[in-house]
């Protein structure tokens, strides 16, 4: 065993160091900022705990913290089981229409949460299209989309794709022979799922729990749109308030909340590591090529599955995307409005007349497609560096990977803005897309890396060991054995990262400049001047394009595999 790591130590350590610099520089900057009385670059700022005293004596902070914990737990409780079941149905059973479903499942991830929340308002808000239609027929609608419970429900349902993506990548690689064996021994569909499939995909699920907890902690868009009107305050919306409370922007206060968010990941990663400490046991891709045999659901099984999936699709996709689509084509909506009288194409016209938006579309596509590929390359290097590596280095890696996820995108963007501004040799890069790419790579780190790691975990050590004993170096083993095996995982990671980069909005707010505009951040200023009609048109185009791209990628991917 010692031999498998021996000749890669240099590579592993340099990858770890590079990751350390990338992740820790913004984190340490924020930590330092939290102990100051003003901006870190101001000569008037002094060291002290004033900012901590301010935050920890503010009752709103505790209220926000409590709500955030509830919100995170609730989101997990909903998205985890549903995401895992959905992944199982799509990858392991003969569910009708699964090919089609595969392309559609990810749609809730295509939009930034703020736009998604707005879509819900148009569809099922108090004056939403569905709500008004329901009230016309049945009387007062029994739902209210504002408030903590609706927020949790919607957040849980729209995070199902995150879980799906991770667990389906793992499930796809399961050897069918294990399930087959269980089936021939007389086990039913659900017994197989529980006793055979479940333990094998557990690592992927544990990863996605960790990720989704962090996602919930740093969620901003949904709490702003669905929580704020009901007075539901979470840590991120609390940060929003802090920016103006003292007059000039008080970054030390924001930094304190960011440090609190960072502190949360330590127990989380600790638990995660405990659960996964025996993960080697679950390595499932052995030397023998195994054909996947799909479990037959039967007629009633299909029906039940589709009833559930149909309900989920309606709430998580039809409502929000439908709402956005409607808003894109009308100039008025809501109570007392007949939508057919207000149809218009004007909302799209503006898109093609604004220079910054056109630059924004080009830049966003560049960042997503090419930047996304570069990001996956970087994640692969880090994943390999941590692969079959135990000890302090690996522990550090586990913690560092989740750190950036604890920070809201706005704060990561701000930290990198400062880094590119104040580190002399980085200064020329600040005004290029490169600065955005670096920040984006950090934002996407935990998503992308986890996808690759989860697949790596499933590669049985025998494969590598036999290559090594046949005389291959560790580099050759990775290049010829490991990487080809995890190729589907890499493609999945690239897809995921493209989606994340396309919709990212907060990170660019501080970083973007003339010539490096990105769509997500332009949306922020459109929102400020009220152009939600333009935003809806833009969002709709983006959903259609992303879905199209995904279908295309699936087709191409499918051909590659054959």
């Amino acid at each position, binding site marked *: 065993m010692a031999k498998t790591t021996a000749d890669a130590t240099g590579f592993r350590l340099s990858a770890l160091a590079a990751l350390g610099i990338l992740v820790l520089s913004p984190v340490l900057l924020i930590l330092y900022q939290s102990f100051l009385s003003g901006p870190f670059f101001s000569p008037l700022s002094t060291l002290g705990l004033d900012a901590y005293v301010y935050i920890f004596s503010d009752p709103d902070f505790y209220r926000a913290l409590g709500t955030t914990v509830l919100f995170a737990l609730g989101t997990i409780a909903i998205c985890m089981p549903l995401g895992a079941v959905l992944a199982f149905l799509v990858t392991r059973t003969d569910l009708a229409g699964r090919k089609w479903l595969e392309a559609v499942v990810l749609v809730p991830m295509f939009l930034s949460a703020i736009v998604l929340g707005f879509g819900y308002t148009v569809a099922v808000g108090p004056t939403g299209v569905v709500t008004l239609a329901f009230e016309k027929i049945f009387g007062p609608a029994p739902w209210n989309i504002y408030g903590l419970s609706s927020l949790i429900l919607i957040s849980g349902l729209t995070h199902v794709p995150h879980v799906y993506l991770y667990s389906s990548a793992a499930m796809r690689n399961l050897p069918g022979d294990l399930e087959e064996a269980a089936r021939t021994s007389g086990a039913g569909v659900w017994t197989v799922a529980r006793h055979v499939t479940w333990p094998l995909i557990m690592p992927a699920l544990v990863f996605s729990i960790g990720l989704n907890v962090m996602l919930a902690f740093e969620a901003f868009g949904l709490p702003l749109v669905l929580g704020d009107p009901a007075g539901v305050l979470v840590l991120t919306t609390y940060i929003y308030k802090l920016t103006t*409370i*003292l007059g000039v922007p008080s970054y030390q206060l924001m930094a304190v909340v960011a440090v609190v968010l960072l502190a949360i990941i330590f127990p989380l990663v600790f638990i995660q590591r405990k659960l996964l400490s025996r993960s080697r046991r679950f390595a499932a891709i052995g030397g023998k090529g195994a054909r996947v045999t799909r479990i037959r659901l039967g007629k009633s099984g299909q029906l039940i599955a589709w009833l559930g999936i149909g309900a989920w699709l309606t709430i998580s996709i039809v409502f929000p995307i439908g709402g956005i689509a409607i808003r894109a084509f009308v100039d008025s909506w*809501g109570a007392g409005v007949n939508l057919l009288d207000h149809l218009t194409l004007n909302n799209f016209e503006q898109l093609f007349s604004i220079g910054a938006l056109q630059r924004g579309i080009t830049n966003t596509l560049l960042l997503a497609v090419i930047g996304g590929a570069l990001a996956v390359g970087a994640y692969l290097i880090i994943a390999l560096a941590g692969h079959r590596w135990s000890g302090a280095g690996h522990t550090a890696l586990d913690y560092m990977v989740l750190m950036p996820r604890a920070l809201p995108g706005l704060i990561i963007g701000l930290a990198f803005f400062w880094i590119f501004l104040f580190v002399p040799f980085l200064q020329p890069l600040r005004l290029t897309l490169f600065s955005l790419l670096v920040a984006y790579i950090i934002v996407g780190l935990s998503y992308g890396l986890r996808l690759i790691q989860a697949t790596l975990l499933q590669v049985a050590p025998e494969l590598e060991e036999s290559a090594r004993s046949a005389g291959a170096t560790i580099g050759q083993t990775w290049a010829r054995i490991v990487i080809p095996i995890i190729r589907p995982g890499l493609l999945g990671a690239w897809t995921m990262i493209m989606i994340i980069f396309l919709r990212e909005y907060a990170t660019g707010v501080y970083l973007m400049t003339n010539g490096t505009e990105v769509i997500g951040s332009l949306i922020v200023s459109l929102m400020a001047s*009220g152009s939600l009609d333009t935003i809806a048109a833009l969002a709709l185009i983006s959903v259609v394009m992303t879905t199209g791209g995904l279908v295309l990628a699936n087709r191409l991917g499918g051909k590659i595999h054959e």
Partner: protein
Amino acid sequence: MQTLKITTCAAAFQAMTLAALPAHAQQAPEGYPADYVDLVTAAVGEGEVNVYSPTDSEQAEGLIRGFETAFPGITVKWNDVASGAVYNRVVSEAAAGQVGSDVVWSNGLDLQLQLVEEGFAEPYKSVETAHIPDWAQYKDTAYSTTVEPIVFMYNNTVFQEAVPKNRKELTELMDTKASELNGKFATFDPEKSASAYVVMENDVKNDAGFTTLVDAFGKARGKVYASSGQLREKVLSGEHPFAFNINGAYAKGWAEKSSNLTVVYPEDYTIAASRTAFISKNAPNPNAAKLFLDYMLSKSGQEAVADAGLPSVRSDVSTDNWDSVNKEAGGKLVPIELDAALLEGLQPAKRGEFFRNWKKALNQ
């Protein structure tokens, strides 16, 4: 539609060639001092001007084109900087010795003055100052460039009450029908939006009864939102059929697009907010910066911005301007003056007091 576009293009082209002449020949614009030519020459030598502004490029398009047409050889580089990020960007870049902005133009009036006070702006007495009202000038450095009335807006299909015409009527309505109109009112959130805070600060100054209004708003369980975009949709859809402290420059445009929106200029007084511009200290293109600031305040620059929906502070323009807005406001338009009061509003103690009262009223 197509022919309309062609004629507009042709007209624009004509205007371009005509306007281009003086700059090419390097003559000072009419009425400007003779040595202005030197400034133009120096600015053309710099070749570009960087503007930081939360005004989105859709609204700035006319201004950008107008300037580039008037002064060929200078490119306008528009930087879409979110309202809350302007101050940070200017201060950080200055601290790093990497100033990227030539002109900073923002609706965060208090923070703009704060930047002037902290020495991040370069004093420049614009050649246009004679045409700019006193309230819109600060220490020959910062200039307010627009008139943006702060108005009521309501949904005329959903809102069935007698429409309140002033704050007193609004207060009475929210107070007497608090339960019936529960959750029907909305306003801009002063806790999340710095410009909403500045407006409310002026409300308190202009209206002794404003705290009663906030109380009544809390009693009627009114809702607050952090962006014009959210407010527009909430009123448009009838979720909250009535809102106050809306930016009327935007609202007027929305009402033109959607027939169920109506704008009301409060008859007791209508605050005129604005956006203020100054030249950055150590600007990379100091001459182009002066030229751009002068152009922003000039007749044609003001008309270009007014055409995009933000009325002019000048009275001698053919577009929407101070006088026309004041007329719509029944002569009760009150500007937010660029003065020390704006800076006082940034004091944490003063804000703390305001927010305590605000929260108390809202959480009753």
